[in-house]
């Protein structure tokens, strides 16, 4: 029996995530419309929007994955409700601090806040420390949440079991559900990158409060920044995968997926690959040791094996020539995996050093990460939200709007992403508030991208209304 309190907290997460998502999409559309000269924003306003858009998106889809994993983990182990609530409160406070530092203080160093830019790009002096403190508040809340979930799993499973190492011997006596294995691998990765964020913040605060007496090394800080930023953005996808491993077969009316020796090996290797793939962000820093650059390419390639190889094949096996009970939830999972694969292909192309030489920081970068987020991770979480909101409802969805919702998401998503990919191949820079006239396609592509993103937004609004109504009912229901 799922505790009533956990249902209510999860409902609150769902509503907050969807609300913040709608706001963040609108900020994104405004950016594309400005790039297309349809509206006129000042560069400071544009880059402030860009900073808020990036960091809010990362935050909400990370916590969406965590909330889903926490909810399902209760099936296997008892999770800490106070840790869940602390994470929720810290996330809200962190986002409000972030918005104050950006919208009011005009901090606009981008969500990657690459040193030493945070010390130079704000209109109010207090905006930089407030921004850094907002990251600290988010990080502390998330760290407590991750550690509590890891501790919960370790109370039931031994260290060897939680990593599924018993499958490396013949005839394993105990079972580790794939959900537990993937959650553990992912949470350890997240804790590691959050600890890197702690070091990063300490170094930045040291320079800020020493008033220049202590000066950081730009290359070290860049490595730390992407170790944190890339890893957390990547791990949030794996949180979604953990949910799919648990729910896809269940919703489709099929037997649960099982862990095998190579599934265990693949996911254990992922922990290493995922923590070293971030080096691909520094390919164009030629002073970085060459060994790390090559490691970056190899890790980026190999990270796709367990995640894509195992997951995609498992989905294909589950569906191929098998009667499936298709609902909106497992359709979202299925299309999400497809979007994630396509985004992964764009990512592997960009993670190839010789391609990165002509793609780095062009529109190809937002093209591929928006693919596996907007058409992958978002759909994973929407699938969970939809399934969750119907779990405790007496009424079943009439599904009248299901096809329409999916059409808006897929049609809007493809058009919005195509504009990015074509722009990337056409060498159009990313993160430009306005495009120079020498890029004749840039403004047209921006308008096309903004228009299709609006169609995608309509789909999200339909989901938002439908799911939020049910979640609000759960939130204010008396019984469990």
């Amino acid at each position: 029996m799922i505790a009533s309190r956990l249902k209510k907290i999860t409902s609150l997460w769902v509503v907050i995530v969807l609300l913040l998502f709608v706001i963040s999409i609108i900020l994104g559309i405004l950016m594309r419309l400005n790039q297309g000269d349809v509206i006129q924003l000042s560069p400071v306003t544009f880059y402030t929007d860009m900073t808020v858009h990036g960091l809010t998106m990362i935050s909400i889809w990370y916590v969406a994955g965590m909330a889903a994993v926490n909810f399902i983990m209760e099936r296997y182990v008892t999770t800490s409700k106070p840790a869940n609530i602390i994470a929720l409160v810290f996330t809200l406070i962190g986002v409000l601090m972030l918005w104050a530092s950006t919208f009011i203080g005009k901090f606009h160093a981008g969500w990657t806040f690459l040193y030493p830019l945070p010390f130079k790009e704000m209109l109010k002096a207090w905006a930089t420390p407030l921004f850094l403190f907002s990251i600290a508040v988010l990080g502390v809340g998330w760290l407590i949440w991750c550690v509590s979930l890891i501790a919960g799993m370790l109370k039931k499973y031994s260290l060897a079991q939680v990593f599924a190492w018993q499958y490396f011997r013949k005839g394993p006596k105990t079972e580790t559900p794939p959900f537990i294995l993937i959650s553990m691998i992912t949470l350890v990765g997240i804790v590691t990158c959050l600890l890197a964020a702690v070091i990063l913040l300490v170094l930045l605060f040291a320079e800020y409060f020493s008033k220049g007496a202590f000066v950081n090394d730009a290359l070290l800080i860049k490595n730390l920044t992407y170790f944190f930023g890339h890893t957390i953005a990547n791990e949030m996808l794996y949180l979604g995968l953990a949910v799919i491993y648990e729910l896809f077969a269940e919703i489709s009316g099929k037997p649960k997926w099982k862990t095998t020796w190579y599934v265990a090996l693949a996911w254990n290797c992922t922990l290493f690959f995922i923590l070293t793939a971030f080096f691909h962000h520094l390919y164009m820093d030629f002073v970085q040791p060459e060994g790390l650059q090559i490691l970056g390419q190899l890790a980026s390639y190999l990270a796709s094996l367990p995640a894509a190889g195992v997951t995609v094949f498992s989905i294909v096996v589950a569906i191929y020539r098998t009667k499936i009970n298709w609902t909106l939830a497992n359709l979202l999972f299925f299309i999400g995996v497809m979007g994630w694969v396509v985004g992964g292909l764009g990512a592997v192309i960009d993670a190839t050093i010789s391609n990165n030489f002509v793609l780095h920081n062009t529109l190809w970068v937002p093209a591929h990460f928006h693919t596996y987020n907007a058409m992958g991770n978002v759909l994973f979480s929407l699938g969970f939200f939809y399934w969750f909101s119907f779990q405790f409802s007496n009424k079943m969805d009439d599904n009248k709007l299901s096809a329409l919702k999916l059409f808006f998401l897929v049609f809007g998503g493809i058009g919005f992403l195509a504009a990015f990919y074509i722009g990337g191949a056409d060498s159009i820079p990313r993160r430009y508030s306005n495009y120079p006239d020498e890029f004749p396609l840039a403004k047209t592509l921006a308008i096309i991208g903004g228009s299709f993103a609006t169609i995608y937004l309509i789909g999200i609004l339909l989901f938002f209304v439908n799911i939020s109504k049910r979640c609000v009912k759960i939130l204010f229901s008396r019984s469990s």
Partner: protein
Amino acid sequence: MHYSILVLFLILAVISISVFVYVFLTSKSNDNQSTGMANALQKRFWFILILLVILCIFASVTIPKSPYYQFADKQPSKVIHVAAQQFNFIMSNNAIDPKSPVGDAYITVDANELVEFRVTSLDVNHGFAIYDPAFKLIAQTQAMPGYINRLRYQFKEPGLYHILCLEYCGMAHQVMRSYFTVK
């Protein structure tokens, strides 16, 4: 336009989507016998192994083409010093003093000569991206404070080449640019 990259992506994307759509349709088909996939675990093992081999081949072909190894064994005949700062590029045929940075008004290089750009930054991180006369991105490196990145390139075609900042560097990032001529 880098058509080869776009076409490669489109081919891979279309193949992947086609497989997904096909598999989806088999689950909707009325005449299926719900047999599922025979020997699924064994097939999955081979699928992963084949994927590993393809990725290894792709890596071994592309890694030697990385910019770090291009012209590594040759001596550049021309050195251009670059100091980036918010929001312009200082370029000179001589070393640039960071305390009083001054550049040359015009930079010219010969076609087919090996040029080395020694790129640094005087403030924040910048990008140093070279666009050919048709505004196609052909080479780049980062301009990082405290470090000098050495970018070697041989320009085949004469013309006016543009430099754009590709690392977000602040409110006027989008207008930070420079140029040089290849004779």
